[in-house]
């Protein structure tokens, strides 16, 4: 009897022990640390999991870099690097590697698109008041004001020599068309430098870049905001294991005058926004195209959008002004239907 009790006790302890061990030692899914914020004049979300170091510390480090990027890329902060370049009166200016990279990519894309995407529309932005959050200052400029500003637009006025840039003819650069994708890429680099197998995503102003698949092998599901819905209302979804998704649209910075909508993406030839699309969402392996392609498409319209997408190998999902969905074949790879 005594022997029997000992065996029962050992058996019970072994089973309970193995249950405990399986609960605590089994490979559990990584726990994501998520931080929200408002940076660079837009909202930011980073979700991150790693087995190397503390995820919160890495995410906090990422957030700490935004101040640096603000002082590089914000053309409306007096003293920022881009502000100083825009006010350099045609002199050669040595620029930081971050600024140089985005200027080079922007000018390269301007060449490819024959100026439909043009980062030198800087002087048009304050003319409409879209450089500020003060909605009361958003207004329709006079045709004469637009004509005058257009005399200072044109990507061929940007000269690059090694790490120096010269802006001719009084052009001002506005790099919003590629900046968010680039910053996504820099933050992802930080995450991967910490742990190449780490997982998560970064979302800077609606441009989402993937650090690594969810739980190591599952896609992240990214909603596409309904251009005529509220900010949590998605019209479709993409699934991403890697790469970037970004959206351009007419629904946040706009005014309606005499029933016509004018928004913040200008045709560099006319100085006004075009009315082809409510939004264009792009999936790309290149961070800069996830933003830049949408801006180009809002200006260029559907036929040029399709042609350029084939050349660049990007996937797009567009909503035209009639609310119809236009998407290319490449999009099927990423489409997610819950």
């Amino acid at each position: 009897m005594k022997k029997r009790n000992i065996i029962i006790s050992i058996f019970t302890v072994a089973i309970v022990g193995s249950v405990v061990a399986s609960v605590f030692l089994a490979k559990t899914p990584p726990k994501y640390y998520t931080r929200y914020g408002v940076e660079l004049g837009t909202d930011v979300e980073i979700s991150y999991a790693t087995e190397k170091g503390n995820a919160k510390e890495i995410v906090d480090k990422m957030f700490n870099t935004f101040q640096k990027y603000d002082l590089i890329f914000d053309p409306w902060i007096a003293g920022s690097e881009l502000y100083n370049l825009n006010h350099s009166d045609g002199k050669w200016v040595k620029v930081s590697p971050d600024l140089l990279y985005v200027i080079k990519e922007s000018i390269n894309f301007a060449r490819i698109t024959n100026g439909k995407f043009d980062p030198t529309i800087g002087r048009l932005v304050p003319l409409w008041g879209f450089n500020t959050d003060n909605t009361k200052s958003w207004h329709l400029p006079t045709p004469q004001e637009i004509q005058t500003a257009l005399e200072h637009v044109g990507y061929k006025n940007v000269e690059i020599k090694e790490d120096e840039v010269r802006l001719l003819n009084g052009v001002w650069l506005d790099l919003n068309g590629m900046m968010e994708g680039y910053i996504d890429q820099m933050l992802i680099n930080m995450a991967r430098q910490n742990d190449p197998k780490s997982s998560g995503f970064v979302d800077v102003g609606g441009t989402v870049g993937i650090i690594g698949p969810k739980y190591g092998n599952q896609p992240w599901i990214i909603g596409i905001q309904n251009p005529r819905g509220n900010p949590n209302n998605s019209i479709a979804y993409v699934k991403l294991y890697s790469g970037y998704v970004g959206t351009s649209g007419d629904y946040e910075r706009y005014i309606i005058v005499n029933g016509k909508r004018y928004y913040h993406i200008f045709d560099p030839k006319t100085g006004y926004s075009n009315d082809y699309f409510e939004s264009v969402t792009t999936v790309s392996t290149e961070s800069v195209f996830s933003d830049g392609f949408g801006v180009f498409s809002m200006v260029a319209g559907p036929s040029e959008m399709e042609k350029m997408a084939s050349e660049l190998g990007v996937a797009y999902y567009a909503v035209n002004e009639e609310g119809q969905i236009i998407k290319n074949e490449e999009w099927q790879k990423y489409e997610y239907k819950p």
Partner: protein
Amino acid sequence: MKSGKNTNTSHKIFSKWDLILLIFLILGFGLWIGFRQFAPSAAKAVVLLDGKVYEVIPLDKNAYYKVYRGDTYLMTLETKPGAIRATYSTNWIFPQTETNQVSVATGWISKEGETIISVPNKIVVYTEGAKERTTYDAMTFQN
């Protein structure tokens, strides 16, 4: 010659009751672990101002909350059980004007993953412990 030794009970290690007790022990332990791991917490809203937690609001009643930066009034939040929304938002940079009220237009949020964001005021509101989660992990919107 057979020994005639009775082997019916002497080698039976577990009785029926021992087995039942063992099963209950294991099930009870499993339930306890499961409850600790997966029990939902009560829904609450986290309000961030300038990137720091300003207030954690339990979503268990009808109430109004105001958000200030120092003495400057920024936003009114309304709660009902399980949900929160912004009912008014000013613009601290340009206090004489209203913003375009994206935060107000967002309406009620009740699912994990939904947010209310006021960029001019640098306010983010998100839910924690909600019963439902959004279909998406993140949202792409115009830049």
